């Protein structure tokens, strides 16, 4: 099947990228970590939102909680323990909020997911303020190459997960929910269970990515760790590349990471204008994204 070919292609490209720390400078290793982070995030987002059609505007909450957990336990737990724990905590949070949240559909789900992420952000800010922290510093973080390999593993894990979900009943069920949820329920798709499972699976990798990026930044500041622009950017990447295609989020991530590298330092507002225009254009006119498989299949309206 072509999805297996895509998975092999993406995983092969990631494998080839493993050589970066050996041949490139620290600049390139750092750049690669950023690119891999976005690949992992956009790919994870597409597992839930790309397949189910429930557009999550709050995935940064999983990233932020992961970062918070790793930083808060820094003196007591080794990253070998706290990073997997961050993934588990993010998935557990998804399971905890999933049942009521996933009953809300369409545009209401979009703003609800955004609202939950903002609510958690402000609760964390208040909790940190009450504990006497404005931000936290962590010391003796792993070196750049170690962080690179960790992030590479997370990008590969997200891709493997995206492929695994697509090739099982879960993936087919989610696509059925996306096309027509009522019809899917009628033909026996366990709608509520599938949505919940997909959300939890899609939350795990962002949790670990958040923890890893906290080590890269060596500090934690809630406004940055829970920045809604992280949610917006992962959506933008998946939508530009194609959210129901294994190559799509990777392609979208590379396009935007490159664009950001070109413009962010010198003209951040111009970068944001272009990002906004890309999301506007793709969401309205090219819903299938650059990889376009989803668009082609939906060419004939139901």
């Amino acid at each position, binding site marked *: 099947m072509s999805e297996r070919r895509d998975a092999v292609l993406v995983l092969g490209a990631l494998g080839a990228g493993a050589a970066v720390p050996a041949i490139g400078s620290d600049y390139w290793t750092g750049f690669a970590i950023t690119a891999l982070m976005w690949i992992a995030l956009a790919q994870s987002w597409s597992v839930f939102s790309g397949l189910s059609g429930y*557009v999550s505007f709050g995935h940064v909450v999983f990233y932020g909680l992961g970062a918070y957990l790793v930083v808060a336990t820094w003196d007591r737990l080794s990253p070998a323990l706290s990073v997997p724990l961050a993934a588990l905590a993010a998935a557990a949070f998804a399971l905890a909020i999933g049942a009521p949240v996933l009953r809300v559909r369409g545009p209401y789900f979009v703003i*609800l997911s955004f609202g939950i992420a903002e609510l958690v952000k402000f609760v964390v800010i208040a909790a940190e303020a009450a504990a006497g922290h404005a931000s936290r510093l962590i010391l003796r973080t792993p070196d750049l190459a170690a962080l690179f390999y960790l992030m590479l593993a997370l990008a590969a894990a997200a891709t493997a997960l995206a492929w695994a979900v697509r090739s099982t009943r879960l993936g087919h069920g989610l696509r059925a929910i996306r096309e027509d949820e009522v019809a899917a329920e009628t033909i026996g798709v366990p709608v509520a269970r599938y949505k919940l499972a997909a959300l939890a699976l899609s939350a795990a990798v962002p949790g670990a990515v958040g923890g890893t990026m906290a080590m890269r930044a060596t500090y934690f500041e809630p406004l940055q760790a829970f920045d809604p622009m992280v949610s917006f950017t992962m959506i933008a990447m998946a939508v530009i590349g194609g959210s129901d295609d294994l190559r799509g989020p990777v392609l979208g991530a590379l396009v935007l990471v490159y664009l950001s590298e070109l413009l962010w330092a010198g003209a951040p*507002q111009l970068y944001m204008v272009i990002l906004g225009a890309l999301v506007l254009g793709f969401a309205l006119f090219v819903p299938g994204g650059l990889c376009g498989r989803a668009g082609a299949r939906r060419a004939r309206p139901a």
Partner: protein
Amino acid sequence: MLETLAAGQLLFAALALGALYALVALGLNLVYGTMRLLNVAHGDLVMLGGYATYWAFAAAGIPPLAAVLLTASGGAALGAGAYRGLFRRLLAAPRATARIEANSLLAFFGLSVIVQNLAALAFTATPRGYEYLSGVVRIGEVAVTGGRLAAVALALALCAAVLAFLRRHVLGLAMRALVEQREAAAVVGVDIDRAQRASFVLGFGTAAVAGTLLSMTEQVSPFMGFPITIAAFVVVIMGGLGRIEGTLAAAFLLGAIETYGVALTSPTYRSILVYGLFVTVLLVRPQGLLGRRAIVR
């Protein structure tokens, strides 16, 4: 504590916030009622109205109370243009699915990001303010600046005017009919195109005026619109999507909850309060706490 809560100053603050929310949320709800899509860029219209007022005052010496006419007509023209150029075509398309609606919401977020950053490029991120009617007026025990008093009075008057228009004027009735029963309205002969355009004109115009009024009491900045959009969302969702009276009630309710909530706790809890309310209302009753019946989509 009780004396603080009973103070007229706090009551006035709640009323002022509620009046601003009412004006912004009324417009948002009208536009929502017309196209069944939440305009995420609505707060950015407030920001643009604020900048127009600032520049009119700083560059041309036009007093803000006269600039209201300028921003009102500018906002109205923008609404008419946006409707004609973009939304009429989108609205003519067959009934959208939930997925397409979610995608349109993303498109609006994209638009909002564009407008905010273009404003930051054009005006820089530095907040701008001006001195206007800054003398303090005393009404009983309440002390306010003249600008603030004028802004609140104007906001209340405008809300009343919009409500009267929607209840009495034939075009206002057509807009309400459109909001409540789109297909039925067309059947009984409501000019859908005209009513839709009027919703955009009124919605955009009131948002721009809200920007003028806000600039009289606060500084304007390129990213000020987003929190306003969020507050207006909370109001619209509490009051019921498409419900006009519910929106007014919810606006003053949110103004009071926010003002008294912050007074009782601390300003750091303001955002928790607003987003907590937002999430709770969406989870418990997506059709609105004060809504008469579900507008299920």
